C-alpha cells in the first residue's frame, strides 16, 4: 500500500487530468444530448434512435462495471480459478436475454420493465411491485459501484483517512445525477459508448502487456501465477474460494444467480427500448455478447497476471477484497512502483476505472428513476393523469433522491468485494424480476396475484436471506464484523430465493380466483412476436 501510494501520490496530477478530461467530454455530450430531449421517449429511451451496434456498445458499457473490471480481476488474482466463474456466468447469462427477453420486451413495453409485467394485469399493484424491485436491485448495484470508486481513490490518493473517500463517493454521486437529469437516456447512452471503448482499449492494452511478459504463451502465464500464489497447481483448479461443503453450495448459488440475473436487471432491460425495432434489439444483444465475451476473456489474463506480477500479499495489503488488483497490475506492467511508466499506466487505468464506474452508476440511476416516475408516480400515485412533462420532472427528482440514498449507503459498505455485491444484485433480479417476466410473456394463465406474489416473494426472500447471511454479520469480512445474527449459511441467496420467486408466481396464480383475460394475452402474444402496435 505505502509503496504504491507514494508513487501514485507523485503522479496524482496525471490521473486527475485524465479523469477530468473524461468528465469534461462526457459533460459536453450530456449538455448536447440534453438540448435535444423533448418528449418522454427522448428522456427515457433516447428517442429510440440508436442502432443495434451503438446499443450493443452501450449495453456492454452498462454491463462491464467496476465489478467486472476491478472485482473479477481481484477475485481471480486472489482465489485463482474460482474467480473465473463470474466471467462465465456473466456471459452465458446473455443467452437468456437474447432468446427469451430482449425482443418480446422491446415489442411489448414502452419505457420500463413494468410496462411488460403490467401489460395484461391490473396496473397499480403490478407497477408498484415492479417499481419497488427495480429500485432495490439498482441500489444494490449502485452500492457495488460506489464501493469500487471509494476503494480506488483511497489507493490512488494514498489516503487512509475516510474524508477523501467520502468526498469521492459524493462527487461520483453528484456527477451521475447531473448526467441523468440533464442528458436523460440519450446522454447516458453516449457516456456508456465512450466508456465501453475506453475500457476495452485499456483492458486490451494490459492483456497484451501481460501476455508479452510470458512470450504470448498462456500456459506460461498460468504457471507463473500458480507458483507466485504459493498454492501451486491448486490455484488453477476450482476450490480455492469455494472448497468446503457449504462453500460449494455457495458456488452453485452464485452460479445460478449470475446466469439468471442479467435478464432481470432493470438498467439492462431499459436499454432495449433505445432501438427502433425488435430486430435491432436482437442485434444489440449479439454485439454485446461479442464485446462482453472478449472483455471477460481478457479479465482472465488480468487476474492471473496480477497474481503473477503483483502477488496476493501486495494486493491484499492495498485492499483485502482484491478490488485494486487491476490498477496495481497496471503499475507493475508500466515498470513498477516509483517508475514513470508505472505511474502513467496506473493513472490511465485508474481513469478508465473511474469512467467505468461513472457510466454504470448513471445507467442505474436512470433506470431506477425512470421506474419511479413512470411506474410509481405517473401510474400509481397520479393514476395515469400526470402529464408527460410532470412525469419527466418527477424522474429527475427521483434521480436526485436515489443518488443521495446510494451515496449514504455506500459510505458503510466499503469492505465488501464489488463483484460479490453485484452478485447480490443479480440474485435479487433473478428472484424478483425474471420469474415474473417469463410468466407474463409465456404463461397464458398467469394473473395479477401471481405477478405480485412472485415479485414480492422473490424480493423479500432474497433481501432477507442476505441480511441474515455472512455478508452482513458473523465474519471478519462482514458489514458488521462485531455482531453475529446470521443463520443463513450462504453468501449468495440465489439457490433458495430464485425457486421462491418462481414458486410464488405459480402458487399465487393457482390460488387466486382471478380469471386471466385471454384477449389481453392474445394481444401481448401477437405484439411481442410480430411487433404489431409496438411503440
Amino acid at each position, binding site marked *: 500500500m505505502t509503496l504504491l501510494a507514494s508513487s501514485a501520490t507523485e503522479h496524482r496530477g496525471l490521473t486527475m487530468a485524465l479523469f477530468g478530461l473524461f468528465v469534461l467530454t462526457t459533460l459536453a455530450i450530456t449538455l448536447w444530448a440534453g438540448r435535444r430531449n423533448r*418528449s*418522454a*421517449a*427522448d428522456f427515457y*429511451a433516447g*428517442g429510440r434512435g440508436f442502432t443495434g451496434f451503438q446499443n450493443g456498445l452501450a449495453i456492454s458499457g452498462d454491463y462491464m462495471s467496476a465489478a467486472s473490471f476491478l472485482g473479477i480481476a481481484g477475485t481471480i488474482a486472489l482465489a485463482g*480459478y474460482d474467480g*473465473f*466463474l463470474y*466471467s*462465465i456466468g456473466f*456471459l*452465458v447469462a446473455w*443467452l437468456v436475454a*437474447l*432468446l*427469451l427477453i430482449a425482443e418480446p420486451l422491446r415489442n*411489448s413495453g*414502452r419505457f420500463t420493465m413494468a410496462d411488460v409485467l403490467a*401489460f395484461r394485469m391490473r*396496473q397499480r399493484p403490478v407497477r408498484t411491485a415492479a417499481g419497488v424491485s427495480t429500485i432495490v436491485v439498482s441500489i444494490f448495484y449502485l452500492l457495488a459501484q460506489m464501493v469500487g470508486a471509494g476503494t480506488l481513490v483511497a489507493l490512488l490518493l494514498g489516503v487512509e483517512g475516510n474524508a477523501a473517500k467520502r468526498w469521492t463517493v459524493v462527487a461520483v454521486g453528484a456527477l451521475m445525477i447531473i448526467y441523468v437529469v440533464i442528458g436523460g437516456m440519450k446522454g447516458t447512452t453516449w457516456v456508456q459508448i465512450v466508456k465501453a471503448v475506453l475500457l476495452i482499449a485499456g483492458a486490451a492494452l494490459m492483456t497484451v502487456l501481460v501476455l508479452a511478459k510470458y512470450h504470448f504463451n*498462456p*500456459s*506460461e502465464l*498460468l*504457471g507463473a501465477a*500458480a507458483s507466485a500464489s504459493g498454492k501451486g*497447481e*491448486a490455484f*488453477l*483448479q*476450482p*476450490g480455492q474460494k469455494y472448497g468446503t461443503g457449504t462453500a*460449494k453450495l455457495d458456488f*452453485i448459488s452464485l*452460479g*445460478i444467480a449470475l*446466469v439468471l440475473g442479467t435478464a432481470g436487471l432493470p438498467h439492462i432491460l431499459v436499454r432495449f427500448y433505445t432501438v*427502433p425495432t425488435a*430486430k435491432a434489439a*436482437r442485434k444489440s*444483444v*449479439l454485439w454485446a*455478447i*461479442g464485446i462482453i*465475451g472478449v472483455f*471477460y*476473456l481478457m479479465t482472465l489474463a488480468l487476474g492471473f497476471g496480477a497474481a503473477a506480477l503483483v502477488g496476493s500479499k501486495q494486493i491484499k495489503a492495498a485492499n483485502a477484497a482484491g478490488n485494486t488488483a487491476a490498477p496495481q497490475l497496471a503499475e507493475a506492467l508500466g515498470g513498477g512502483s516509483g517508475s514513470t511508466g508505472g505511474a502513467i499506466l496506473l493513472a490511465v487505468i485508474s481513469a478508465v476505472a473511474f469512467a467505468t464506474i461513472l457510466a454504470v452508476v448513471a445507467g442505474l440511476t436512470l433506470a431506477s428513476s425512470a421506474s419511479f416516475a413512470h411506474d410509481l408516480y405517473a*401510474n400509481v400515485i397520479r393514476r395515469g393523469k400526470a402529464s408527460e412533462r410532470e412525469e419527466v420532472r418527477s424522474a429527475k427528482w427521483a434521480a436526485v433522491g436515489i443518488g443521495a440514498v446510494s451515496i449514504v449507503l455506500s459510505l458503510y459498505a466499503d469492505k465488501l468485494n464489488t463483484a460479490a455485491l453485484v452478485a447480490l444484485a443479480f440474485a435479487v433480479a433473478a428472484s424478483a424480476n425474471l420469474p415474473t417476466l417469463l410468466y407474463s410473456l409465456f404463461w397464458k394463465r398467469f394473473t395479477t396475484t401471481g405477478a405480485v406474489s412472485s415479485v414480492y416473494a422473490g424480493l423479500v426472500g432474497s433481501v432477507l436471506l442476505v441480511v441474515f447471511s455472512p455478508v452482513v454479520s458473523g465474519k471478519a469480512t462482514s458489514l458488521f464484523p462485531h455482531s453475529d445474527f446470521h443463520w443463513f449459511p450462504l453468501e449468495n441467496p440465489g439457490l433458495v430465493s430464485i425457486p421462491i420467486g418462481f414458486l410464488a408466481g405459480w402458487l399465487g396464480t393457482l390460488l387466486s380466483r382471478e380469471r386471466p383475460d385471454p*384477449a389481453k394475452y*392474445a*394481444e401481448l*402474444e*401477437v405484439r411481442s*412476436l*410480430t*411487433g*404489431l*402496435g409496438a*411503440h
Partner: protein
Amino acid sequence: MDSPPITTAATDVQLIDDSEEFRTLRRSFRSFAFPVTIGFVLWYLLYVLLSCYAPGLMGTKVLGHVNVALVLGLLQFATTFVIAGWYARYADRRIDPPAAAIREAHGAVVHAPREAAE
C-alpha cells in the same frame, strides 16, 4: 393508455392470434428458444457442478498448465458465441419474414414507433 389496442376492433387481434400464420411463427420461435435455453442452462450447470464435485477431473492437465477446468470454462464461452450466432441465423430466416408478413397483412398500425404523435 400505455398499451393502446393494436387494431380498432378488439376481435382482430384474437383473429391474428388464432391464424395459421401466427401459430406457425409462434411454434418456430418457441421450438427454438425453449429447448435451446434448457440445453445451455443444463450445460452451464454441469460445468458448475463439475467444478464443485469433480476436482480430480477438473485438475487433469491437458497441455502445460492448462487443465480440464480451464478448457471447460473456455468451452462455455465458445458455446455462448455459437448459440448466439445460430439464433441470429435462425431468426433471420424463420422469425423475421413471417413476423413482417403478419405486420404487413394487418398493418393498419405503426411499423416504426412514432413517439411524438402520442
